[in-house]
């Protein structure tokens, strides 16, 4: 019983670390630009398909990163400049932004389907095997996912707190007008925010491709999950998203193990709804 519990907790924490990676990209965009990005899941799929395409050329995983990182960054930046910026002066721009990104999601997902076909693509695992700690067995793939997520998360946090650009991003999130007054170019910050968010989603896609496969509409599951996580944590709060990701990751592992996989999403929504009834702004959110 105890060993079962430890097993479930380990799997929950591994899930949580990947979810944290997925959710902070969304929390960042919402916190800084106030846009709810519906195409977030499509950037995840884009990462997976980039990995699949480059990997198909038989170069291994390293070139995947060299090619995918700038492409994803560019895709995110272009999305902001072409689709979001023209809307910003409108009174109803938040709703318009959601619809534009929903259109983008449909455009991208169906383009993936047109190019790669409707069936799932698989990628070989980064690492095989595992290690034994007494009666507990930990797969190397899971371990690697955990380590990579933590490394990416930490470097993201360092980017926010230590670099000039990162600090500018945080300043805009805290007070858009104030940031503009002290001379921060908010349009650049918005673009970079979208780019970093697309990059995080795409990296998640590359990282999870060996485990969950790549499919044209696979991003929707990720979008909904990232959405629930950021809402539970408090939309726009990066700290809240981190806590929420681990809470929901562990809930997922427990429900999946003891009740059944079909009930995971129900459990997530139940937790979210109960939290929102007590705290409408989410765990760490503030009204704004």
């Amino acid at each position, binding site marked *: 019983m105890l060993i079962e519990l430890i097993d479930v907790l380990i799997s929950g924490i591994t899930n949580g670390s990947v979810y944290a990676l997925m959710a902070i990209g969304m929390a960042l965009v919402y916190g800084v630009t106030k846009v709810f990005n519906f195409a977030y899941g499509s950037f995840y799929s884009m990462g997976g398909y980039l990995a699949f395409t480059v990997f198909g050329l038989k170069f291994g995983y390293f070139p995947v990163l060299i090619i995918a990182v700038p492409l994803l960054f560019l895709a995110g930046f272009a999305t902001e400049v072409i689709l979001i910026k023209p809307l910003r002066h409108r009174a109803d721009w938040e709703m318009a932004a959601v619809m534009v990104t929903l259109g983008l999601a449909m455009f991208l997902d*169906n383009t993936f389907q047109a190019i790669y076909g409707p069936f799932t693509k698989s990628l070989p695992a980064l690492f095989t095997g595992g290690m034994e700690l007494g009666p507990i067995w930990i797969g190397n793939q899971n371990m690697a996912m955990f380590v990579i997520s933590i490394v990416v998360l930490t470097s993201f946090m360092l980017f926010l707190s230590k670099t000039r650009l990162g600090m500018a991003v945080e300043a805009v999130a805290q007070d858009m007008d104030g940031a503009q007054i002290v001379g921060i170019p908010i349009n650049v910050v918005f673009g970079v925010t979208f780019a970093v968010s697309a990059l995080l989603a795409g990296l998640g896609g590359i990282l999870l491709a060996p485990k969950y496969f790549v499919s044209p509409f696979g991003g929707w599951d990720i979008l909904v999950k990232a959405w629930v996580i950021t809402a539970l944590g408090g939309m726009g709060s990066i700290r809240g998203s981190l806590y929420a990701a681990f809470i929901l990751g562990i809930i997922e592992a427990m429900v999946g193990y003891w009740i059944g996989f079909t009930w995971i999403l129900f459990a997530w929504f139940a937790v*979210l709804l109960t939290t929102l009834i007590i705290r409408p702004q989410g765990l760490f959110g503030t009204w704004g």
Partner: protein
Amino acid sequence: MGHGGNLMKIKKDLGVLLAVYGLLALLPIFFHNNMSLMNILIISLIWAVVAGSWDLIMGFAGIFTFGQIAFLVIGGYSSVIFCKLFGISPWFGFLIGGIVAGGAGILVGLPCLKLKGAYVALVTFAVHMILEPFLKSDIGRAIGTGGAQGILTVPPLKIGSYVYNAMEPTPWFYTLLIISFIAFFIIYKVVHSMWGYSFIALRDSELFAQSVGVNAFKYKLIVFGISAALTGMIGGVYANYVGMLSTRILGLDLFLILMVMLVLGGMGRFPGALLGAFITMFISESLRYFDTYRLIIFGLLVMVLVIKMPQGIIGLIFPLGKAGIIERTILHFREKKAKKAEMIT
């Protein structure tokens, strides 16, 4: 998107609605033998009601909901299940579909009362997301949803001794014309009533509306209820017309097409959703053989329309704040006439 309460505007909205329905009523005279065209027209009328009631809550009341198709499915299933269980006429089934969906709408609206923007979208979209696994689950099957394959036989719709059938689209068309007209008339009446003004006041400034005594909770629940009830009612009609029900309507492609209808017609612009539904269905049907490319085109269309045409088709005909095509034409002729009169004198 300001909606004034002046009489001119109200008359214009009703005039446009009547003109569109008048034109539609004439169509079967020319096309009653064209089965596929009649089918498109009927389906367009059904989706027009869904788009119209979505516009009521999203465009006019400014509540960001994504649960409209879920209410359509709830209404459709409950209508058919009640008809089968108690042997009642499908006409009552439509009403029951509307009542059940309206109740569900109020139930979903309750947790949304204190939430804002993207949270409301999430809670309503969650209903959409969990409806499919629920209908396919053992609980769903016990209620009579038919699980994964859905409901394959739907009790036929009758009027007197006449049984509606797929071979004769004209009676279906006129029935739907009347039902959808009633739905749009209700939406029109709601928009131009104290309720409607309260919705719009809450949309434009919730704080201000509350300070002049508009009860935000009450009106939000009312709009959730009405919008879901109209959609659920048409869900029952949809099930009867198509002759079967499955969870396939919950697919994302239909969600996107519904959004195209709204954006193309003009959000918060009565009766934009009606025009949007017809145009979108015709585009969709003409791109039928391009399947995947159809949705790529629709995705592009949504992006271009939202950025370049925020008021939709209705905005082209009647732009806010300046004279539209029709008014400009009238003005043009009036000026010509005045000039002629000047020339003579």
